[in-house]
């Protein structure tokens, strides 16, 4: 790893830390009893999760009619939330795998939580296609498995089936990648723990990690390979999700620009969510020295560039509609901007294109409260992007007789809230039971004071 440039850049870890400090700081939340703030956050999240679970239970017991959908608009909050969460799940892999391959060392401070976030976001995402089915209990029919119903197979032409493969693959790879990255840190925890259940569990999970050069070698090889495997997924998952729409015939959905547009949007929203979480985490868990302004600023810049791509895509859609000569296509886009749901469209444009432009200003992207507001708005905007694509395209399609309006029900809103509940509950638990920052990687990437004697990170762990 080239470290030549790093001398000219601001340090990745501030606060004059030693290797031992890093371990202690990062493991501190796991050792201490949870703070009041954590309990409060957990309580709110868990209540939200329970509300969502109750809503899902009610909806499965009663019927999809408890959602605000109708004969014209067959997807609303359900698929909007699905795409939204899948999108959020993108930043994790991007930061872990792509930035790893590009040797972006600043990723070390955020990759662990980004990966965890990915995992939880994909879990949230996966729930929606499941519960959106009229007969959820038959969801396994989406899987091609040998069965006794004659030669009854799944429809390999259906993008929804591709989704099943894409999402499950992504979830599996993300989980493995996250776990593999955790192994050295699990060994650290193991070594720090008093004999007891924690030690026993981490002993098993760290797979006999002994910090030897051979272990490190194997680890780095696997990690590199997994990064290589995961990288195409960053692009493929959302490409396939976008094909749910792109391969259909509905104006506003049927467009070839969707794969890159969706991928850029996904990374955009994922980064926004990572920044949101990191700003909260560094504040609540006192990790200011590890997640520095430098990290925030770099991610902001990455987000800005993605926001510009997204903005370009919005413009391109309009150009293509005008250029296509297809009156139905033209209508859909005019209707988006000026029709009854134009408020959603303009919310989207404002949040995703206009607001992020503020990040060109260094003062803005280094002022935490401002960045926080911007990323929250981007999250909102990206949710609306999916809503606009799904609902405004459906609500007025070919035959004016079938035009309809969509209003979500309380059950739908509760389910949406519940997905946030699940996400944050998982994330808060993660912060308590695993190091939120990759200890080993930070040590490897940052120039730290080598305490007392000159030890390698490996030795440090053993200590």
């Amino acid at each position, binding site marked *: 790893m080239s470290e030549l440039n790093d001398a000219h850049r601001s340090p990745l870890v501030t606060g004059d830390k030693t290797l031992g400090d890093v371990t202690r700081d990062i493991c501190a939340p796991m050792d201490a009893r949870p703070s009041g703030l954590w309990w409060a956050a957990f309580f709110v999240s868990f209540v939200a999760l329970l509300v969502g679970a109750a809503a899902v239970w*009610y909806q499965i017991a*009663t*019927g*999809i*009619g*408890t959602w*605000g*959908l*109708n*004969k*014209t*608009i*067959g*997807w609303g909050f359900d698929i909007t939330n699905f795409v939204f969460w899948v999108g959020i799940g993108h930043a994790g892999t991007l930061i872990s795998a792509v930035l790893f391959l590009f040797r972006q060392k600043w990723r070390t401070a955020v990759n662990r939580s980004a990966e965890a976030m990915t995992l939880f976001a994909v879990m949230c995402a996966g729930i929606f*296609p499941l519960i*959106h*089915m*009229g*007969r959820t209990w*038959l*969801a396994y*029919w*989406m899987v091609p498995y040998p069965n006794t119903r004659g030669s*009854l*197979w*799944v*429809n390999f*032409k*259906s*993008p*929804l*089936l591709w989704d*099943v493969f894409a999402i499950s693959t992504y979830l599996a790879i993300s989980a493995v990648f996250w776990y593999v990255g955790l192994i050295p840190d699990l060994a650290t925890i193991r070594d720090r723990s008093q004999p007891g259940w924690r030690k026993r569990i981490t002993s098993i999970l760290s797979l006999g990690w002994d910090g030897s050069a051979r272990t490190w070698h194997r680890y780095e090889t696997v990690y590199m390979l997994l990064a290589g495997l995961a990288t195409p997924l960053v692009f493929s998952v959302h490409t396939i999700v976008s094909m*749910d729409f792109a*391969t*259909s*015939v*509905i104006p506003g959905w049927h467009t070839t620009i969707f794969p890159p547009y969706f991928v850029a949007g996904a990374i955009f929203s994922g980064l926004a969510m990572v920044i949101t979480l990191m700003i909260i985490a560094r504040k609540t868990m006192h990790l200011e020295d590890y997640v520095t302004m430098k990290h925030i600023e770099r991610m902001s810049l990455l987000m800005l560039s993605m926001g510009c791509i997204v903005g370009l895509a919005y413009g391109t859609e309009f150009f293509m509609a005008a250029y296509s*000569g297809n*009156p139905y296509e*033209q*209508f859909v886009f*005019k*209707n988006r901007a*000026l*029709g009854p749901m134009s408020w959603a469209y303009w919310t989207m444009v404002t949040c995703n294109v206009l607001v992020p432009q503020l990040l060109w200003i260094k003062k803005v992207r280094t002022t935490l409260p401002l960045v926080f507001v911007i990323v929250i708005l981007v999250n909102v905007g990206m949710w609306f992007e999916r809503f606009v694509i799904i609902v405004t395209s*459906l609500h*007025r*399609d*070919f*035959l*004016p*007789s*079938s*035009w*309809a*309006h969509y209003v979500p*029900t*309380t*059950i739908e809103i509760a389910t949406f809230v519940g997905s946030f509940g699940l996400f944050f509950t998982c994330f808060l638990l993660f912060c308590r039971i695993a190091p939120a920052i990759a200890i080993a990687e930070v040590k490897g990437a940052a120039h730290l004071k080598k305490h007392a004697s000159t030890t390698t990170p490996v030795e440090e762990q053993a200590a």
Partner: protein
Amino acid sequence: MVRRSTPRSIVRCVTIERPLMNNESHNKYWKSLTERDGSSPERDVIPQDGVPFGISRRRFLEAAGFTLSLATMQGCGRTPTETALPFVQQPEGVIPGRSQTYATTCAGCSAGCGLLVKVRDGRPLKMEGMPEHPLSHGGLCAIGQALPLGLYDSHRLQHPLKDGESTEWDDVDQAITQQLSEIESGGGAVRFVTSTVTSLTLQASIDTFLERFADSCHITFDAVSSSAILDAHEQTHGSRVLPRYRLDLAHVIVSFGADFLGTWISPVEFTSAWRSRRVPTAEHPEMSYHVQLEGRMSLTGSNADHRIRLSPDEYGVVLSHLYAKLSQQAGESADRDELGAAPISGEELTALAERLWEARGESVVLCDSSDVAVQILVNGINHLLDNYGKTLDIAHPSRQRQGNDSDILDLINELKAGKVTALFVAGTDLTHNLPDRDGLAEAIGKVSLVVSFSERLDDVSSLAGFVCPDHHPLESWLDAEPVNGVIGLLQPLLAPLGNTRSVVESLARWSGKDDSAYDILRAHWEQSVFPRAESEESASFVSFWDQSLHDGFVEVAPTEEPAGEFQTDAVSFMEDTPAADYCLSLYSKVGLTDSRHAHNPWLLELPDPVTKVTWDNYVCVSPAKASELDLTDGDVVRIESTGTDVVLELPALVQPGQHDRVLAIALGYGVKGTDRFADVGPQWLEARPTVDPGQLVGKNAASLIKARDGMLSYARGNVSITKTGKRHELASTQEHHSLEVPARVAPPGAEKRDAVQETSLSAFAEDPTSGTPEVHHFGDAQLWPEDHPKTGYAWGMAIDLNACTGCSACVIACQSENNVPIVGKDEVRRQREMHWIRLDRYYSGEGDDVDVSHQPMMCQHCDNAPCETVCPVLATVHSEEGLNEQAYNRCVGTRYCANNCPYKVRRFNWFEYPHDDDLQNLALNPDVTVRSRGVMEKCSMCVQRIEEGKIEAGRLGQPLADGQVQTACQQSCPAQAIVFGDMNDPESAVSKALENPRRYGVLEEFNFRPAVSYLRMVRNREVDEASDDHAHDEEGGGHV
């Protein structure tokens, strides 16, 4: 356990085993020479593994497992034990599970259409039109289609009631007979009120019954009467008759408010006749010319070639002008000076008169006015036009409306004066359908004997001392002579479900006779009908009866009505009435007519063909008036009858094409007992009741009927309208009402969509393909090879938009055939109605005068179906015969198919729709699955009928003939607008229709390749820019 291996695998298995067997002891023993000298494989199959007791371990485990699982399954049984008894003696021709068709006559209204009823295992299931019937020609309206739900209605009375208590017939008979004999001896007025009685036998029974009493009278009251027409003919022709209108002979039809395609007198008959003159071909580009002058937007007006907005209180003036113009044409002098200004332009009037005059003897003027003077003018015009004896037959008149308003008003006075001793009410909810309900109820309270024959506890029955429930028409023996000379028979199609009794039988009992309805009917036919029979085949009464019963109707010699000469003196011009602020028009709604079907949820959920609103009645106001009063759909307004305390609060509905001064309210709503529908449809957290607490379905507007000069006036002035500020959300199935997209979001050059294509007759004459929009076609290029070769049948459908009136009979036909659930008002409001056929209704045109187009839209069974590719589990697939099939069992409910359907014809089961009413469940068609929640459904092109037809043809060893399979919608379309059949057969009707130059496919340019085609609509107009697809914009451009 049965071995599952195939013979071939057994052989293979044996060849492996054989060396072993040969080496073992078995080679010493053999049963035959072939076995020893080279055994045949079949012989070796017998397992000979030398286990004692002849059972192997494997066999034992199989048997044990089988026994265990069987025992387990036995224990799991959830079905209750039911005993099915087979027929001890199987009725002739009845095969369990197969439907029989019986001919009878529809009694949904007094029009008397021919009915073919599919009966299966003893229950009538599906009403079909009778193609041979001389009036209905195979058509049947929504009401006729909805009869089964009326039959299987758990709210029908099961027993006679005495003072509101269930009792036995003997008690009722005893009590009534006693009272009647007191009246007979002691005197007293007996009044028998019925709705129009077309039944000869019932009429005779009533007459016989009333003969005993010194002061007795049979009064006919129609909830929406045509009394004025009959009264006018009494004055002009000396005989109180309703002419039989022959629209099939009319080349020019001018209707003043008469909704003859929707609700007026005999809509199916008129639709069929009207349609027969609406088929322009390239060789004969001719069509009848239909002008509608009306205040509200009726279904008929929506189909007119030229529609003139005219308030009902102006009919008289315009008719006077028309009469004057025509008498001038006829060379008769008419004093025109007394005529005021006409509310329509002089040119329009002249053009109208010229068109009528040109078509003398081939024209007809119709009017629904309840004003006798207006109807006399109409008669005068028809007389001037020489239409009597041609398009209007008064020698062989119609019996479909016999109501007499002055009689009923006299009765009310008698009742109020306490002069009536006994009142019998049959076939009409008297108090519900008349104004001043409370006053009338109080007056009825003075009558000592009140007997109602109502099927259910309606308003008048609740006032009656005795309720003697009549059978449902499908349980009755009866007859009907809707038009002089055409007599239909009604036969019972199942044993009465309750302890009910037909009116004829009740009357016989009270006259001391024990005859059954069948005996009475047959005796009456032998006496009165058989002598009129003309056919030579009917040598004996028995064969005549059997044949009539088989056919369901008989054509006999009409009785000549003595029609006098036309009395010109009767005609007097009507002054220009001072324009009132408002003219309130009370109308009957398509699919409901009057209150008698208000308990039928199919009809209540049927979207009105024009407004598309379900489950409510409302006040229609014109757009201009609505903006003046600041009203939008669902704003509750208060309608007050000036000078009285009659007030009605109803939601408003903005109706394009309505006259600005006209307010229109549908009758037949607010019926007692309809609060039962409060919890129809799914019940869940946010569900709102179909009927608000303490309310009924809609409100009864009969209180606003004005009784004056011996007439019940359904159009009246002296009303005021005020906005209350309250809201009542209406449930409409269509949100956007035009093919034009909102101007704000319309792409330039594509403001209007061409789902409905139309042209004018003059343009059509020049170029039969005129009206084709210029769109980019991608040709027939296929990206992939044809994967549905359709070598056998290729089912297809063609719908003639020029014939379709939008009457919505097909919607109910489909609902009945395909077990489409009722979802309730809240679900309709959420746009989740389940009807497989949607009748799209679009307005077009600028300004106040609008054109209307109706388009039935159902699954188009596309060859390149967008729904099929996206289903992840292959639940919707293409059949070898070109059908897009939905496998409910396989569907997991992703709704992706519905999203990707460009026609939005797929319907999702959002909930488990209630099927708790066991009686109502009898109306379900056993050929069609009842769908569970979470699955998608849609039009199947009645695949069950196709399969039934194919099986039957196969059984007979014949090819399936064209027309042998008819979809439910096609079968009973009164306008015969739908053609269905095999597109691979070049001679089939559908193949012929596809060659029609008017053919087009909706959204064809996207290459979905729909199997449903439409035939372009032709309006009888002269438009210069014929090929311009915006021809419709030039409203009234043709004029006359």
